[in-house]
């Protein structure tokens, strides 16, 4: 049984560049089988649920989106996606045996950089996460973390040497997280890196990384592989997290100041009643 709160959110279900002009294929979302099809190249894509009912369709940010119960609102905006000069990088799905919410929470965490992404996104002894700001923005009902600063030996494919990188994080919908970070070639702009998470089951998900960068020189293959390298370093950690479902209630864990984003994310999920992939009864 899918909780109502989960049925009305937007989810990615395919990468647009992977879809043939006409096709029919199945995918799984929240444990239910969906049929995705396009009968002819000039027709719109159709998504139908297990009962044959038509689902909402959106084609943006390089991916195909749907909302099985009908969306509460339009697909969230990424204003940077309309900015001229950005390069969009689809990275393909990586399947992870973990809660979709854990995939998002890990993406929001900075403290693991020196240990999991050693010499790339972090390095010992620069392990301290300085104080940063976290809020749930009321007008948009999104989780935001801002003024996150961290020393990085190789912040991006386009970075030369170590820099202190400024980050902001944004969670517009429970299974999507974006980060905005210092853009080495364009200091006045910020690179956008996102993960779009497709929950297959409460403990299994496909993660679609996506980027919108200012970088005119790096070959596409290098950009894709840089992001895949980073995400694959996370995968083995995610698959070993216990408990498998994300606890929403304070329990045995003792969060530190560095975990403020995670704490806000869990509270925000609880307030929305978003329990798919969450541990609702404390262990």
């Amino acid at each position, binding site marked *: 049984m899918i909780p109502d709160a989960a049925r009305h959110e937007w989810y990615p279900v395919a*990468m647009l*560049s*992977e879809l043939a002009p006409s096709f029919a294929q199945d995918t799984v979302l929240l444990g239910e089988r969906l049929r995705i099809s396009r009968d002819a190249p000039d027709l719109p894509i159709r998504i139908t649920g297990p009962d044959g009912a038509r689902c909402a369709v959106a084609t943006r940010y390089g991916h195909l989106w749907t909302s099985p119960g009908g969306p509460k609102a339009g697909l969230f905006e990424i204003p940077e996606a309309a900015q001229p000069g950005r390069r969009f990088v*689809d*990275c*393909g*799905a*990586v*399947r*992870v*045996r973990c809660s979709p919410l854990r995939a998002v929470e890990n993406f929001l965490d900075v403290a693991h950089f020196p*240990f*999991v992404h*050693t010499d790339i996104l972090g390095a*010992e*002894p620069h*392990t301290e996460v300085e104080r940063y700001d976290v809020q749930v923005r009321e007008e948009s009902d999104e989780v935001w973390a801002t003024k996150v600063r961290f020393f990085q030996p190789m912040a991006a494919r386009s970075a030369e040497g170590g820099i202190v990188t400024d980050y902001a994080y944004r969670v517009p919908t429970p299974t999507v997280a974006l980060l905005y970070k210092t853009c080495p070639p364009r200091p006045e702009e910020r690179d956008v890196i996102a993960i779009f998470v497709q929950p297959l089951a409460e403990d299994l998900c*496909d993660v679609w990384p996506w980027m919108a960068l200012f970088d005119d020189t790096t*070959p*596409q*293959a*290098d950009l*894709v*592989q*840089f992001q*895949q*390298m*980073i*995400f*694959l*370093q996370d*995968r*083995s950690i995610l*698959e070993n997290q216990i408990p498998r479902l994300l606890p929403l209630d304070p329990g045995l864990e003792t969060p530190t100041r560095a975990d403020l984003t995670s704490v806000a994310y869990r509270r925000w999920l609880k307030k929305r009643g978003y329990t798919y992939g969450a541990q609702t009864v404390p262990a």
Partner: protein
Amino acid sequence: MTVLLYDHVLSPNCYKARLMARLAGVPLETVAVNAYPGREHLSEESLARNPAGTLPVLVDGDLILTETQAILVYLAQGSRWMGAAGPATAATVQGWLAFSARLTSSLGVARAHDMLRKPADIAAARSEGTLCLREIEARLVEQRLRGQGFLAGADPTIADVACFPHVALAPDGGVTLDPYPAIRLWMRAIRGLDGFIEMPGIHRRHDLTPEPQPAVTA
């Protein structure tokens, strides 16, 4: 002349070539190929270089090598990484190089299925992978009783480099390494080698990096 490696960061076979080059001290220039999701390894240009459409591909001047084991031999030739002199060791090394292909078609297939959604008979792949792991575990236990820590002798060779990545990444394909203590010791030894490099899913040994803080002196 630069040695070029057409490379994919997620591929264990490409990692073997990168790791071997670093261990043997051979400078290598990598060219990223967007094999996933871009399927660039099947482009016209890639197929002209390697009709099999596989990665890695090593190019050194006129020489093009498309088989991982051949690439390892090329990078390690003339070094101690080929193993001790003598027919028995040379043949043992060759045996394990051939064995490594079984790892690719079992543990490698399970990993591509679980991680990159590649269709496969997952139960068969895991079961064959488990048999391979048992063979390696048995070999390493016997080697230890002889006082030797690696597959083909007391020192690591290309045989270890050929088998290590798919073994270390077995959990990516849903195959646990918990029952194999000799394999875990062997992996620890390989991860501690001078010149060892990581790939996503195979982490470095943090206990080998310098202490983050200077020791407190009295």
